[in-house]
């Protein structure tokens, strides 16, 4: 009976970890509201937060910092949980949120928009053919999303018709990714240097593009996905025993894999289309979670979400405080910040039996 008590303590500890992470995230999120290139004191920011302060200050808090912090929380959670689910359903430690070619497809779509249709969303109104057309702020996101969804459906479609083994999915994803990358290279080869620089800038993830509408759309998709993943937690646990064994325990592995890959890819597609490519969150956070707390998906799904939010919040805050007035690409920061930590975790922990 002692062991059972111990077990209950462990479950309570996991609950405590989740609660701690929620609090840490809330504290960090609120802290982030006080960091930025504008010279606002903490009391100014507080005043603006509660309806006082100047118009400009309340605009900075309500229209710029809050949407940005929300975007970090939502996209971080989404990318991280998508990575976790990809790793479990494909039984591949190297799987990432964009294993099905989502990011590369989104980059291609964005390049197409910026270079060919010149519907750029940052600094390009450089339509070569028509001189008075300005930038359409949504064109690039829409095309990026369209192509990433097309990429996902293409791979899942092919795999459904032929073979749905994880290795086939991963290989097909690699092949399709390289097709998008090659197509992007071709586009960029024919691009103006103006379009090229805009396209390259787009592919750096930037949370500054967030707005309440975009946050709302991302939130809906991430929430729907995460709720589904949570409901399937036991089935993912069963998958850890191997595909065949999971089937004998009553899990409809093929269906679960299809829906999981689709949802994880949709989450990634939405985040990448709105914010640009934010690498590594989806690999680092799930692995760190698994190394620290084991692989029980009832725990790893919420904890991965929270870890992703934390990492992206931290990275974004750093990116905004390092450059004064011009934020560095947050995607680079996530890798710079996360990789050393990641390496320390994978090499540092004892009792590591290499299963991921």
């Amino acid at each position, binding site marked *: 009976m002692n062991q059972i008590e111990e077990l209950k303590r462990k479950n309570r500890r996991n609950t405590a970890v989740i609660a701690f992470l929620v609090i840490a995230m809330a504290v960090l999120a609120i802290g982030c509201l006080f960091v930025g290139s504008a010279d606002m004191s903490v009391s100014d920011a507080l005043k603006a937060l509660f309806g006082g302060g100047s118009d400009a200050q309340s605009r900075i808090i309500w229209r710029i910092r809050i949407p940005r912090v929300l975007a970090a929380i939502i996209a971080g959670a989404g990318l991280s949980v998508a990575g976790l689910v990809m790793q479990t359903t494909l039984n591949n430690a190297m799987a990432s949120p964009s294993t099905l070619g989502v990011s590369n497809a989104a980059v291609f779509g964005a390049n197409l928009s910026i270079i060919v249709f010149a519907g750029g969303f940052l600094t390009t109104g450089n339509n070569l053919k028509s001189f008075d057309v300005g930038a359409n702020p949504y064109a690039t996101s829409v095309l990026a999303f369209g192509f990433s969804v097309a990429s996902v459906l293409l791979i899942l479609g092919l795999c459904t018709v032929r073979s749905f083994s994880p290795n086939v999915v991963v290989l097909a994803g690699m092949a399709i990714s390289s097709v998008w990358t090659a197509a992007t290279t071709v586009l960029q080869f024919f691009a103006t240097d103006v379009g090229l620089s805009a396209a390259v800038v787009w592919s750096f993830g930037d949370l500054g593009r967030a707005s309440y509408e975009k946050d709302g759309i991302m939130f809906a998709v991430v929430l729907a996905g995460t709720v589904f993943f949570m409901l399937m937690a036991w089935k993912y646990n069963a998958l850890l025993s191997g595909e065949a064994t999971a089937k004998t*325990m009553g899990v409809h592995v093929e269906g679960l894999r299809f829906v999981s890959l689709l949802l994880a890819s949709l989450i990634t597609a939405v985040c990448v289309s709105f914010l640009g490519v934010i690498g590594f969150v989806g690999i680092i956070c799930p692995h760190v979670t698994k190394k620290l707390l084991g692989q029980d998906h009832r725990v790893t799904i919420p904890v991965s979400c929270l870890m992703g939010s934390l990492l992206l919040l931290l990275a974004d805050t750093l990116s905004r405080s390092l450059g004064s007035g011009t934020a560095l690409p947050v995607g680079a920061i996530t890798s710079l910040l996360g990789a050393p930590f990641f390496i320390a975790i994978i090499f540092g922990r004892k009792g590591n039996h290499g299963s991921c």
Partner: protein
Amino acid sequence: MLKVENLCFSYGSRAEAVLNGASMELKQGEIGILLGKNGSGKTTLFKNILGIEKPQSGNIFFEGEDLLKMNRRQRARRIAYVPQHIHFGDLTVFDSVLMGRVSYFGMKASREDYEAVERILADMQLLDFANRSAEALSGGEKQKIAIARAMAQEPKLMVFDEPTGNLDIANEQLIIEEAKKLAREKNISILSSLHDFNQALYFGDRFFFMKDGAVKYAGGKEIVTEEVIRDVFDAPVQIRQIDGQKVILNVF
């Protein structure tokens, strides 16, 4: 209770048939042992019975019901599997066993599920392991946990694929005793492949010799003869009686 009729199966439509009209029958509470050369179709027959693969033709009946028409959850409550290579992922032993009940609770385990698992762990003297990481245990311990997990499915039939394949002799005996106890005490039928004839003779009630994707000989201990083994395995053996027990010796 389990009746397999004329099962045919091949991996992919153009591949050579692995099962070629395999038929067999197992009764309630019986321990059936599948014997045959590597590649004779034992594992594939298991996979078809377990629903991991679907046969191209033939029938499988379980207590008179068509097993091939059941969904995975219904099947999982009847037949449990103890695979040869066992993985759990980085879960506790308790959770690994609780997972066996996923076909009952689906999304969230209830109090009854927890109690059932506690009971099983107590029965199998595994309570001390409950909080350990299942993946980090030894081969024999993992095998026991896998049996506990199969028990959690409350099955009527348990399928063992080479249960003693990776174990030392002490653990081999332990697992065989454990399985035999289940069959005798809980009236659970067992279907197992084994490659050791003496273990098979000690463990089994019925014997199925597979050759070229079909069951060529089936019956009680009496069918385990030098001739049958020579025919099925192309290997000469000698059978002696020691203390009234058949003992099979390798001939070199």
